[in-house]
């Protein structure tokens, strides 16, 4: 292991990851041995291995069940899912592993599949829409299915004389929605029937709410999109557009279709269908009010095929830069475009490049920050998975502009597919001369490395990120010196976010003016968002700056499901705030959003409806930041804990007089007294919800949760509509509802765990939630 990875201090995290991969945890003996045979010191081994949440110090079960507790999953009941999972597996309180050692349950910050919330990952398999009552089914399914091979990268059933493409995304969230099975089925059926079709994997279109999504492109004809395709529907879908190559197969297919139609009750109707060439219709607005620059050619590009990228103007910008433009020209273009850092802070990218360019040093570094930390965001994951070459192209251009010759892509541990695709892309680029010692024959050199994060939100902060790359604990340090002056290993370093870098090539190719033409005020161009939560159509969207939040939610997102009312939109995740429904005409603009108490953030946009409790949301985010705080600064370490304690007791109905004032005091000093962005912004969700929803906080002090969300303040009740079908009783995991056929059922409150299953399974909506004392 050491021979392969290295023995220097900066190899520590990869080494720990390798040890954990082997043992599923870090045995103390392995750590001691590591210190003996490498340059790694014991204090580094202990310090680093206890800092990152990925590392375990105790043995775990054979399979690991990770329940995502990202924001979208949280509002969809992730905690109940976890509770139900533990109940189902009979894991005692305070333990993590089943008696038989088969399963270990964990909570994970965010798997980046927010549109399929609640999401659960078991080993390498991601399950979407795992409502509590599906928990049992999910585990059964996992045990029943054997491990499938990935299939990624080895696609392209290259058919001579193909008449069309069938395109499909198999990114992490589409896979969670079942894309894998559909993709295998597509290939199987195409091969079986000899259809003149190329089955291709493509980058994600971002239409996550329709996953699995199959796009059929008949050459010289139209494009069709099918959403929520099931395995059983694949054959008919293909036959609708393509005819089998020879007679025998044609007959077989027809017979099959006939049989199939006979056997099933209803004739097949396609699931939700989009047609690119037909104008009008509700669904179209999802695509049409968007402007795709950063995610240009979404859903068309094969993410792992460099030829495909080149055919779509790939590396054209790089060639322009290296052959026709000086670094100064490039920086000027970026400055003129008005591009601001897409990681959240919105610092002008051109200015940052200028600093790095002017910094003196024999060696300069460039870092791509792919540590997407907001637990309700997945833009960076999708961009890395779908446009790996575009990210690299942006990085190479940036490196050329500032004079960097070595670089790192720091990617979150939870994004293995992104890491894999970037690693492949780097290898291909090196082969093709886009990376290496003599890029495009110009003599420019750039060596890129991929560093897999190990689970620490704070590593999104640039000084913490650099510390992580150096193999240390991700603890931010005081700035100045800024990275541009003294960054990685003390050398001048440029750090940009994934989305920022992915936008560069478009700007170079189309010019600063064209980019600047989009947007308003000081926010120019477009911005991608991960639209999720209580919205009909979520996914990765890209809109011009200046579009109102309302338009995004209503037109692109298709409004709120289940006839509920929009309550607020959360922006900026744990560092951001809420925008109440009545203020949602605010445009997407760094300054305007800040003014209403939220932040632009990296692009997480979680929609809340009237069943969501703002105190619970504030508590949720505080729990997150408290857990993710590196613990260095007094105010962040203790202040966030004290705020969490107050929020928790509010949610438990144990609030005290003066709690709100104390929250405000703590919020104030935590902002002032913290060194890095994590601490400085940690109180934002509390402050902004206190500003707009103080009445909800006060209600909690009086023991009431107006949204009926906080479990200790509510109970489940069965109305007279109940006709005694016993379904609730059958599903109740704690036997809190005695079975009483044909009679009105009653919930025994002391046994009820508020898992919500009864409410979800009741066929006549007889179960409702009331206040605790009602």
């Amino acid at each position, binding site marked *: 292991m050491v021979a392969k990875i290295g023995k220097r201090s900066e190899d520590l995290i990869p080494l720990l990851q390798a040890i954990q991969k082997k043992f599923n945890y870090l*045995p*103390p*003996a392995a*750590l*001691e041995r590591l*210190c003996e045979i490498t340059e790694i*010191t*014991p*204090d*580094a*081994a*202990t*310090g680093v291995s*206890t*800092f*990152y*949440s*990925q*590392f*375990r*110090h*105790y*043995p775990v079960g054979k399979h690991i069940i990770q329940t995502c507790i990202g924001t979208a999953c949280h509002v969809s009941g992730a905690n109940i899912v976890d509770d139900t999972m533990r109940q189902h597996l009979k894991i005692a309180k305070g333990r*993590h592993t089943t008696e038989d050692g088969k399963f270990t349950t*964990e*909570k994970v910050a965010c798997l980046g599949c927010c549109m399929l919330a609640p999401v659960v990952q078991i080993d390498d398999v991601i399950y979407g829409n795992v409502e509590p009552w599906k928990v049992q089914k999910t585990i059964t399914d996992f045990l029943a299915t054997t491990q499938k091979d990935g299939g990624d990268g080895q696609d392209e059933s290259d058919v001579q004389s193909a008449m069309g493409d069938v395109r499909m995304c198999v990114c992490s969230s589409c896979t969670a929605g079942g894309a894998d099975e559909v993709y295998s089925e597509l290939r199987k059926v195409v091969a079986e029937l000899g259809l003149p079709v190329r089955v291709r994997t493509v980058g994600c279109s971002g239409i996550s709410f329709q996953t699995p999504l199959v796009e059929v492109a008949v050459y010289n004809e139209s494009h069709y999109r099918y959403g929520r395709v099931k395995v059983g529907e694949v054959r008919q879908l293909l036959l609708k557009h393509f005819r089998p190559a020879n007679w025998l197969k044609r007959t077989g297919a027809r017979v099959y279709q006939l049989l199939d139609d006979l056997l099933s009750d209803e004739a097949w109707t396609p699931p939700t269908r989009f047609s690119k060439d037909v104008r009008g219709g509700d669904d179209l607005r999802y695509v049409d009010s968007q402007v795709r620059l950063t995610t240009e050619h979404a859903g068309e590009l094969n993410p792992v095929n460099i030829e495909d990228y080149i055919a779509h103007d790939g590396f054209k910008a790089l060639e322009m830069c290296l052959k026709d433009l000086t670094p100064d020209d490039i920086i000027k273009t970026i400055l003129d475009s008005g591009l601001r850092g897409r990681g959240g802070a919105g610092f002008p990218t051109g200015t940052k490049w200028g600093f790095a360019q002017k910094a003196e040093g024999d060696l300069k570094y460039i870092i791509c920050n792919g540590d997407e930390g907001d637990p309700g965001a997945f833009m960076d994951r999708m961009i890395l998975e779908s446009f790996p070459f575009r990210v690299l192209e942006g990085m190479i251009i940036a490196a050329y502009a500032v004079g960097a010759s070595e670089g790192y892509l720091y990617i979150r541990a939870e994004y293995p597919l992104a890491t894999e695709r970037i690693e492949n892309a780097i290898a291909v680029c090196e082969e093709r001369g886009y990376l290496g010692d003599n890029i495009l024959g110009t003599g420019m050199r750039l060596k890129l490395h991929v560093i897999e994060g190990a*689970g*620490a939100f704070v590593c999104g902060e640039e000084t913490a990120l650099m510390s992580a790359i150096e193999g240390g*604990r991700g*603890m931010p*340090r*005081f700035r*100045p010196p800024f990275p541009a002056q003294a960054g990685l290993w003390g050398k001048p370093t440029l750090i940009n976010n994934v989305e920022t870098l992915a936008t560069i090539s478009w700007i170079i190719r189309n010019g600063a003016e064209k980019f600047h033409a989009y947007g308003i005020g000081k926010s120019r161009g477009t911005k991608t968002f991960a639209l999720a939560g209580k919205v009909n159509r979520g996914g990765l969207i890209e809109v011009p700056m200046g579009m109102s939040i309302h338009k995004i939610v209503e037109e692109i997102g298709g409004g709120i499901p289940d006839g509920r009312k929009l309550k607020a939109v959360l922006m900026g995740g744990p560092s951001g705030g809420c925008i109440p429904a009545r203020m949602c005409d605010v445009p997407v603009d760094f300054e305007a959003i800040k003014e209403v108490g939220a932040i632009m953030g990296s692009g997480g946009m979680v929609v809340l409806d009237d069943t969501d409790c703002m105190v619970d949301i504030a508590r949720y985010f505080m729990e997150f930041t*408290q*857990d*993710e*705080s*590196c*613990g*260095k*600064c*007094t*105010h962040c*370490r*203790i*202040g*966030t*804990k*004290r705020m969490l*304690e107050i929020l*928790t*007791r509010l949610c438990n109905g144990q609030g005290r007089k003066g709690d709100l004032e*104390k929250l405000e*005091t*703590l919020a104030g*000093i935590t902002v*002032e*007294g913290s*060194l890095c962005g994590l601490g400085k912004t940690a109180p934002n969700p509390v402050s902004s919800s206190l500003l707009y929803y103080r009445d909800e906080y006060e209600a909690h002090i009086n023991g009431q949760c107006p949204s009926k969300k906080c479990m200790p303040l509510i109970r489940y009740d069965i109305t007279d509509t109940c006709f005694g079908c016993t379904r609730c009783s059958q599903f109740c995991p704690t036997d809190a509802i005695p079975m009483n056929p044909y009679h009105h059922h009653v919930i025994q409150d002391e046994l009820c765990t508020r898992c919500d299953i009864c409410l979800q399974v009741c066929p006549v909506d007889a179960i409702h939630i009331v206040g605790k004392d009602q």
Partner: protein
Amino acid sequence: MKLTIDNIEFESDEELTIYQAAQKVGVDIPVMCYKEGYDYFTSCMMCVVKDKKTGRQHPACSQQALDGMEIDTQCEEIREARKMTLELLLSDHIGDCEAPCQRVCPVHMEVPKMIREIMDDQMEDAIATVRLDLPIPSMLERHCNAPCETGCRRSKHDEGLAIRELARHAGDWDLKRENPHIPAVKESTGKKIAIVGGGPTGLASAHYLAQLGHACTVYEKSDRIGGRIATEFEKAPLPDWIHDGELKVLRGMGIEVHLNTEIGKDKGLSELQEGSDMVILACGATDPEVLQAMGMPVTEKGMKVNMKTGATEVENVFAGGSIVKPKQPLIKSFTTAKNLSACIDEKLRGEPMVGVVEKYNHKMGRLLDGELEIFVSGANPIGRLHPEDIVENGFRHDDAQKEGERCMHCDCRKKDNCKLRDYSDEYGARQAAFNGEERATHEHVNQNAGAVYEPGKCIKCGLCVRVTEAEGEDFGFTFVGRGFDLKTGVSLNKRLDEGLVKVAEQVVEACPTGALATNEKLMPEFLGYLPPGLKKLPAKSEADTEEAVPASTEDASGS
């Protein structure tokens, strides 16, 4: 670069931090996580200062001093910020500054220190400790009601320590010598104080005021000092050698004691007022008519005295003890005397009278399950010893020492050398301002290393980490975990003595709180204690099981 620090102009070509620049102009900025000679870490935020020009706050230890800055290190905003920083730290701080026995002692005698000095056979030090706060100990300790023994934490386990007997032992030991210990007195202030009455209040006042450098004269109407102590306890009359010994000590401090001198008869009050700067009436329960005759205004209830200061309505005349309120426990007279003396001292210096102000004192509060055992395990488990001869001689020396071993050392080893305490005192920080829902359990790690480690007192400044790293300890201190559960500990779960092979002393010196303190005594046989979890660790085969990993690392693994 040219800037101002608290309006003092400063100019330099050197690259300096604000803290360094302030040092050069003689402005002291409080720091905890920073120590000269080591890198700055910027974690505690105690050193914040304000740049008046921009209105921004900066951590002085890390921020470069820049041209044009107008640094303010002491404005209200900054003081408030530091106070809240301290209050956050205090909300996560486990331990007592002073031991419960000392806290409840009405004169705040440093009981645990005295006990350790007796144990160590440092009797000269022991009597000095006693007499610093407690006048005429051998007289008092025969009759004190000893609230300290009730407060003693050991009483929750078996019986409180025999503190009164130990103090008496020190006192008696001293008085039996040719030349007893004379407490230090400050340089003479030239102020004269006349004290009426040679009882507990009068003598104690004389003692405290003499320590402060004032010239005291005591007028006692009888032929013996002691007042109530000499008259109220007929069953245990005060031996002459104690009476004479205590008188010798008082006179040794420069106090004039006139026996057989009754004020109002042998000498008038007005005479005293004229001849001195202050007069204290401490002549015991006195008939109001007599007082009136002396010229003091009285009501039906007796004399009117300001209870906070002891001042009467007559200018420069104070009163305390039974003359104001009779039948109080003896030790109360001493409390009164201490406070009254402080007020008189303040008044003589022209300052407002506030009396005795106690230093910031962190309190552990109610013990959690298992914590008493941690304290007990550091002490001799034997039951309380009782002197064979209670009337004349008290403890035998070896018994006193043995009884002393029962002390659980509840006080902080660094209470006199703790930045957290000093600053909390200076900034008026309150322990309960940001009280948490529940506190962590007290831990005490004494693994025969040069230092004792109490993680509950750690403020995570990381100085121990930097010191052990700089000095090249093999298994130095490191940060463990993150967030609120962040701890510092020895690498790879090694024992403390493995982690502090070379630098125990430096680490103790660097630690700004009592988290790391000198292990004054390597473990005697009865100190068999190891913190929970560590007993199992050294065996490697066992360390592979889930239970063997200490809670700290398990918490941090993000489960």
